[in-house]
């Protein structure tokens, strides 16, 4: 078992994840997307989670509120403010959703209900969690929209009438509707162009400050995390392979995969970057056919002879840092 690391701050732990496993049933057998992840988030902290598509980060995010599709299995422990989420009764779970923790989804076209006005979709959450009804809800919707930099009258619009950036703002406003303590942002800037990305990131920063939010920021783009987070965790093949203070991880990565992610220079507007943010040859491993030993070894530029045989774990790699690489152990 890996050594316990004390959070860098003395703030109370808001989210505690222990040995999380997520398995999907498929026609070709069970697929383990998350293979034992530990995380901790203290109040007002921002933790960044980086990794390419298929590493399990989105499964992790949806698992936290038990939003996985029917048939998927989640094991382990998820404590939100000390309360066990995985064992909650359905009624309690529904109450905690959006009020305890809310998710900012990626603003793709169908992330919002296409046949419902965006204002109504925000109001639905407000009314559901008894934060207001009727006119009061409408006023609150207006306030939330202005908070994210949109005119209140846009509440009457349908999702297809908004640009990508505006949709993202609506999703952020929606996420804040019930004053959640924990915000999970799952690729909030991925579908946007660079200028808008910067605006959204700045918006999120301001809101975090204003409301003292605790945030889990998930993305494939390591560089955005470096500025926005206090700590960063890097995921590969369903496990965390490195974690530590943001600047340390970004400036001096301990794991070769993180090094690749940090060194990649995306061509502006290049959609291929999203699918291969590390610039490394090859693809992430198929979860049903993982390489032996360290799952990264087939793509690793500095692979050692022992790597296919060693069961890597998160070993200490400096002050408040851990990495799952044999080089760290040496």
């Amino acid at each position, binding site marked *: 078992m890996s050594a316990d690391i004390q959070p860098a701050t003395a703030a109370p732990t808001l989210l505690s994840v222990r040995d999380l496993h997520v398995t*999907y*049933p*498929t*026609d070709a057998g069970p697929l383990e997307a998350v293979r034992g992840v530990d995380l901790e988030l203290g109040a007002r902290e921002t933790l960044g989670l980086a990794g390419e598509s298929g590493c399990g980060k989105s499964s992790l995010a949806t698992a936290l509120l038990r939003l996985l*599709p029917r*048939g998927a299995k989640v094991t382990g422990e998820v404590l939100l403010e000390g309360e066990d989420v995985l064992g909650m009764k359905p009624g309690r779970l529904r109450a905690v959703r959006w009020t305890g923790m809310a998710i900012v989804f990626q603003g793709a076209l169908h992330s919002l209900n296409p046949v419902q006005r965006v204002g109504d979709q925000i109001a639905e959450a407000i009314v559901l969690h008894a934060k207001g009804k009727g006119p009061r809800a409408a006023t609150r919707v207006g306030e939330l929209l202005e908070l994210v930099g949109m005119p209140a009258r846009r509440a009457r619009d349908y999702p297809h009438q908004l640009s990508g950036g505006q949709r993202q703002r609506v999703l952020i406003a929606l996420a804040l509707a019930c004053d959640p303590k924990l915000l999970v942002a799952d690729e909030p800037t991925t579908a946007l162009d660079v200028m808008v990305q910067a605006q959204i990131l700045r918006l999120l920063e301001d809101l975090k400050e204003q409301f003292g939010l605790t945030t889990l920021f998930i993305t494939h783009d390591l560089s955005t995390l470096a500025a926005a987070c206090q700590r960063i965790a890097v995921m590969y093949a369903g496990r965390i392979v490195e974690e530590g203070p943001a600047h340390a991880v970004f400036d001096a990565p301990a794991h070769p995969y993180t090094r690749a992610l940090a060194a990649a220079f995306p061509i502006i507007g290049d959609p291929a970057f999203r699918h291969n943010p590390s610039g490394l040859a090859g693809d992430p491993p198929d979860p049903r056919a993982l390489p032996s030993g360290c799952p990264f070894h087939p793509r690793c530029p500095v692979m050692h002879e022992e790597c296919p045989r060693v069961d890597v774990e998160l070993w200490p790699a400096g002050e408040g840092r851990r990495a799952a690489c044999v080089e760290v152990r040496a």
Partner: protein
Amino acid sequence: MSAVAAPSAKRIAWLRRRRAAAAAWSDFRHDRAGMIGLVILILFVAMALAAPLIVPESELRAINALDNPVWASPSEFSPMGTDSLGRSVWAQFVWGARISLLVGLAATVMAMLIGTVVGVAAGFYGGRVGGVLMRITEWFLVIPFLPLAIALAAVLGPSLTNIIFVIGITSWPSTARLVRAQVLTLKERLYVDRSRALGASDAHLMGRHIMPNISGLILANTTLTVPIAILSETTLSFLGLGDPTSTSWGKMLEDSFQQGALTEQAWWYYVPPGLGVLFVVLAFTLVGHALEGILDPRLRNAPTE
């Protein structure tokens, strides 16, 4: 065995095709519904083909049935009783299968040929030609099938070829639409452009690139069109527009209705042909869906959950 020299492109292509067929057959085997459908189909087709061996054709003629009891139930006259003229229902059922299946298949083949030609042409050439072709196709789709078939059949006169023609000429539009859509997506693919840049002729492109890639779609669609053709033949025959000289399941239903089998409660006359149609149509549909799942490139990548 052994090829010392590197295998030719042709051999590689053939091997790949064989492997794809083997994979498809194994997929098909595992699709239980598809297998059940296939078994049912084989049984009925075998029965239809072996009709002369099962029941002599002479039993269909009323003149040979003069000694038979009329409206005899299956227990009185096995295996399926008789009609108001004393003719053996079993004989009609077995021989009727031939016509029902024949018309269904022939009409479908006709519809497929026309539909594929129109669809490929409309998709490949686009522009004016494509536009006109699609207009015609859309128009056919708007006209309700039964009135059109009735009108055509009434004017052309009842005969076997006419009924095949009528069903074929009214069924091709949906295939054309499907094929055109697929051709359009294929046209966008890089290799067609590259081939054209290398100077390939239209015929080459259509033959080598387009056709092989839509053949799976066409096969699946064909299998799903046959049931429609069979149901159409059944309805048209019931209405009196079928071939008066032969018997089909639809004709059996017409005869049973006209002869008053309903009031005579002679269920053995109208239940079997309907069941025959039901099972054959169901079988073709199951097989067709199974094939679609395997061959249709659009459905290939659908997520399982």
